């Protein structure tokens, strides 16, 4: 079953207002997949270009309307792709962001990209669907935090994200950079070295969630330059020797001077 979630208020119907040929959200298989959201006034449909803070607030208010109209809510978000126009505003984004997901925040990956129509922020959200589907889902939404090390660096940095969120049959991991699990400090090195460190840490985190690299379904790789694509691949293939996951690789501005960042969805 694939249900279109209509715009809860007319201003959020970007298809009608701006000809963006997309549905606001689709519910399928226990999850709600939202279209990328930017700062739109829900009554007038006007674009509210502003600061990272004002745009992030507006997006979260609109997300609240959209998710609640579909029987879900902000606290059921499992994964966010946060896109900002310039990584220099990362801390500003975090400050606004954490107000809306104060506890058990979603898995998250932040990337610096060119956002549509000159906006500064866009949030791409996946949430667990409403409670009545929970009977079929043994784990409606659960934060994975059982870790033997600080491989994801999140305890160190107090970021508004959970390393991993389980929803239904899936585990969603936040974007991981190369972190030394012993110290929690970033590992600076070649693309190959960073890729190896990330996938080692990812294996550990997945195992803490009862999953493994062999159960990974989809991987997203962000790399600072597509010229380094093969350097990433050469290490990557060692970790997925047979039947590798589906994958998308893009060149993007990464946070914190990292060269590679990797996120994934795995079977729980």
């Amino acid at each position, binding site marked *: 079953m694939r249900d279109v979630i209509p715009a809860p208020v007319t201003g959020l119907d970007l298809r009608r207002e701006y000809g963006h040929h997309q549905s606001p959200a689709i519910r399928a298989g226990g999850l709600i997949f939202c279209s990328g959201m930017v700062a739109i006034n829900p009554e007038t449909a006007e674009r509210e270009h502003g600061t990272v803070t004002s745009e992030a607030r507006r997006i979260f208010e609109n997300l609240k309307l959209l998710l609640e109209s579909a029987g879900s809510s902000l606290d059921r978000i499992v994964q966010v792709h946060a896109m900002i126009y310039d990584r220099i505003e990362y801390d500003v984004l975090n400050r606004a962001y954490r107000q809306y997901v104060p506890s058990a925040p979603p898995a998250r990956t932040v990337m610096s990209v060119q956002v*549509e129509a000159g906006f500064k922020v866009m949030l791409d959200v996946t949430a667990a669907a409403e409670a009545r589907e929970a009977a079929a889902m043994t784990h409606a939404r659960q934060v994975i935090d059982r870790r033997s090390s600080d491989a994801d660096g999140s305890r160190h940095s107090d970021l508004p994200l959970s390393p991993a969120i389980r929803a239904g*049959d899936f585990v969603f991991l936040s974007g991981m950079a190369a972190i030394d699990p012993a110290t929690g400090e970033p590992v600076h090195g070649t693309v190959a070295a960073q890729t190896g460190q990330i996938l080692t840490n990812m294996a550990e985190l997945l195992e803490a969630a009862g999953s493994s690299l062999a159960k990974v379904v989809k991987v997203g790789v962000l790399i600072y330059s597509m010229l380094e694509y093969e350097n990433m691949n050469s290490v990557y293939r060692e970790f997925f020797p047979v039947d590798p996951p*589906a994958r*998308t690789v893009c060149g993007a501005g990464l946070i914190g001077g990292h060269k590679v960042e990797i996120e994934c969805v795995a079977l729980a």
Partner: protein
Amino acid sequence: MIGRRLRSVIEPVNPKLNVSRNANLPHSPGIRVGDYIFLSGMGPVDPVTGGRNLGPIAEQIRQTLCNMAHMLESAGSGLDRIVKMTVVLADSRDFDEMNRVWREFFPTDPPARTTCTLQLGNGNGVEIECIALAGESPSW
């Protein structure tokens, strides 16, 4: 549901579109699991030659969506079962053109979608990935 917990690789019927195999890349064209199919990011590959179709952006997008339809149909799904798409453009000025092509391919109830502009490989003007619902009765 039998096989709900299975994770299986899906591949296009047309071997020319099996980019990961042909270029020996460490990813699968798609993975089916439970109710869903997750496809890898796809670019404008010519289904006859297996080479890149780097024509005008509308043509690249049409080509990519045709290939995506083929990939999904190879696994018993289809464009009308897509749930969520992520579109990466190399040039943000192609946004309107992308929407124009989208209307041809998704006349009613289009999927949820996120678009952004990023650096792409192989000179592609567009790369598209999707999550779709698997078919009702898979052939395996």
